[in-house]
């Protein structure tokens, strides 16, 4: 039998050309590796998001996604949490880790349906006094940190965290929103954020008079934010769609299933 120890595929063995030609081949192979590597390249500095959300986060230069080093604010009367979870789905699916701080009420089944990879998710519950240090420590190593503030962050803390995120190339997602007007409210970021996503309309469908069940929500998201590279615009989405995922709105005709209510028969 062959001694497999001696059968190695290597440039040195199989390439008969000497010296300079081999070096140029090695250079070309290395350039190829750099081009085909799927992790984020330093030049682009963008974390990938779900395809449906790319229309929310296009930069002028054509790359769509969460720009590294930025602070993203998510707000709205209803739908902010789903949108924040959907933003975290793209990065976790492509290998980044996400940390969630100060959001004790997150529904993880919904997160899984939206596409978040729960094997790369960590939840941290610091006390209010430890929160700035903890978020700063998390920004060092995690690509995405999603924070909900129940006490309003001071301007100094906000500036420090934004600077930390910019320096480390992490994305800080600040989840605001009124959660349908119940429960405790989340405070907003004191200064403007680079990207501001607000859910301004949210219409659920699927419920009839006692029949059916919630199927999908048609939401209109307004995209704003400072920085000039984001044009203010409005995008319509299904947030979530019938299977729990974010999707584009299909044409009206026939999309809503007609639900026949049940009738009592004795």
């Amino acid at each position: 039998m062959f001694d497999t120890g001696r059968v190695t595929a290597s440039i040195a063995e199989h390439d008969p050309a000497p010296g300079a030609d081999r070096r140029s081949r090695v250079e070309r192979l290395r350039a190829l590796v750099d081009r085909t590597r799927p992790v984020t390249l330093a030049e682009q500095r963008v974390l990938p998001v779900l395809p449906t959300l790319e229309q929310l986060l296009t930069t002028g230069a054509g790359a769509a996604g969460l720009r590294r080093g930025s602070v993203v604010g998510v707000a709205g009367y209803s739908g902010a949490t789903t949108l924040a979870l959907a933003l975290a789905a793209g990065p976790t699916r492509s290998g980044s880790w996400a940390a969630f701080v100060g959001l004790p009420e997150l529904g993880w089944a919904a997160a899984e349906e939206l596409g978040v990879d729960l094997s790369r998710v960590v939840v941290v519950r610091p006390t209010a006094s430890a929160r700035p240090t903890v978020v700063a420590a998390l920004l060092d190593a995690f690509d995405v940190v999603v924070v909900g503030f129940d006490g309003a962050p001071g301007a100094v803390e906000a500036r420090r965290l934004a600077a930390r995120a910019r320096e480390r190339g992490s994305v800080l997602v600040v989840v605001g929103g009124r959660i349908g007007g119940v429960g405790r409210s989340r405070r907003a970021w004191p200064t403007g954020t680079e990207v501001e996503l607000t859910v301004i309309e949210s219409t659920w469908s699927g419920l009839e008079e006692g029949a059916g069940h919630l199927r999908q929500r048609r939401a209109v998201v307004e995209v704003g934010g400072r920085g000039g590279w984001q044009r203010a615009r409005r995008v319509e989405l299904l947030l979530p769609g019938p299977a729990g995922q974010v999707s584009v709105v299909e044409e009206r005709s026939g999309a809503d299933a007609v639900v026949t209510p049940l009738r009592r028969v004795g």
Partner: protein
Amino acid sequence: MPSSASGPVRTLAVWCADWPTVAVGRPPGKPVVVLQANRVVAASPGARAQGVTPGLRVREAQARCPSVETHERDVEREARAFEVVVSALEQFAPRIEVAEPGRCAVPTRGPSRYHGGDRALAGKVLERVRTELAAHLGDGRVPCAVGVAVADGPRAAAIAAEEAALHDGGRRPLVVPRGATAELLSGLPVERLAGGRAAADPALDELTSVLRRLGLRTVGRFAALGRPDVAARFGTLGIELHRLARGEEVEPPDVAEPPADLRVTAAVDPPADRVDRAAFIAKALADSLHAELAGRGLACTRVRVTAETEAGDRIERLWRHEGALGAADIAQRVRWQLDGWLSTGRSLGRCTGGVSRLELAPDQVVADTGLQLGFWGGASEAGERAVRALARVQALVGAEAVLVPEWQGGRAPGEQYRLVPFDTVPHPTGGGGRPRRDEAPWPGRLPTPAPAVVWAAPLPAEVVDEEGRRVGVGGRGTISAPPRRCRVRGGEWSTVRAWAGPWCVEERWWDPIAHRRRARLQVVLGEPGAHPSTGAAHVLALEAGQWWLEATYD
């Protein structure tokens, strides 16, 4: 240097047990552990006596021994302290090969002839190392078990040295006669063939665990297999281990003599007294050496680092690595060497003045077959970074405040996943070993989509119909009247724009204490004073006559 023709090189290896704890410098009787990413990597004899072994999590170690002292791993400190051992060996042989702080090896052909045989040499080395350790790192007592062994081949010698330290407490050197290496190794468990590399090399770890699961628990049984079978089943790595198990260790066949002109030198002017200045220059040197090698398609597995001071003192050391040495690895080893020399060497009187010249030469090269981190290197590297940061965060907030979601299955919204402490989950760096979501039907569960907000403490609510009477759900799951208005926790009344249900769940009807009957409704509540199309969807649950707001589809 190429030894594949002449058989394995007789080598003397020195192995110091739990070197990280020795480098910390506490008395050996005290329980001390060294941690990396919240796992124990080394434990002092005092800690081992209490049952603390490497591989445990820090909380388990503290449970077994509450008075244990924990230290974070510092490889620089270990390298600096190991200079004591290496300088003790230098009077026996000129070229000492260091694999990592704690393990080093010396080819014995010249030295043992000079000192009167393998056994005499090993005895003298052991004596000397123990004296030096006791004098410099142990306050008069030898701080750890030191194993010295001579065998055929550097890896076999390292395994034998480990065996000598573990088996005998390192009191006597273990000299394996030429050709008897296989016999020594045959009784050992098969994991020892990895020789300490298993932590760094997952393929090796995998292979030894496969061997154990196949029933080949000892090295002897593995060695008894036929080489063609091992080659067919396990490939190159298996062949390498099989040769080692049979005592026929050879250098990998693609190892070559490095080209003679591949040597980089730098003059340090003015001479560097402190490590960081010299290390800065060393990093530039390492980068240029690596670029030279890479340009020729080679990678270095053993590098010779030479440093000279202005007074003429010279230190030369071989650093060996199992995989290929990258530029950062070479720079790190130069830093270790200089650190050890400038601090410990100076105290031993062997180094005067500053470093004035640095030279790096590759001693053994292999063809460069690929990237080191794994081809799509990003994923595991991000995981390692995350785990290290979480160790820091756990120190800040406590282990109970760092959690991960784990699937457990259930009917109520929010029951399907629970949060468990991060360090109770196996394989925290992504994937493998955690319960997966299954598609079993759970009668009474609300259909997808799931609510994004689940209130940990459900909020009390009131739900009334047209006439203002409380809405109830009868025994057969029929609702008393359609709900029209709802208010949560005594707030403003909102209109119910749409509703569906009830979903009835009766849990544990056989258990009088845990018996629960709940009925759930999905409702869309209008925002008071807003456009009729804007509404928030919620899950309301009725239990024992009281309505609760359980979840919100935020």
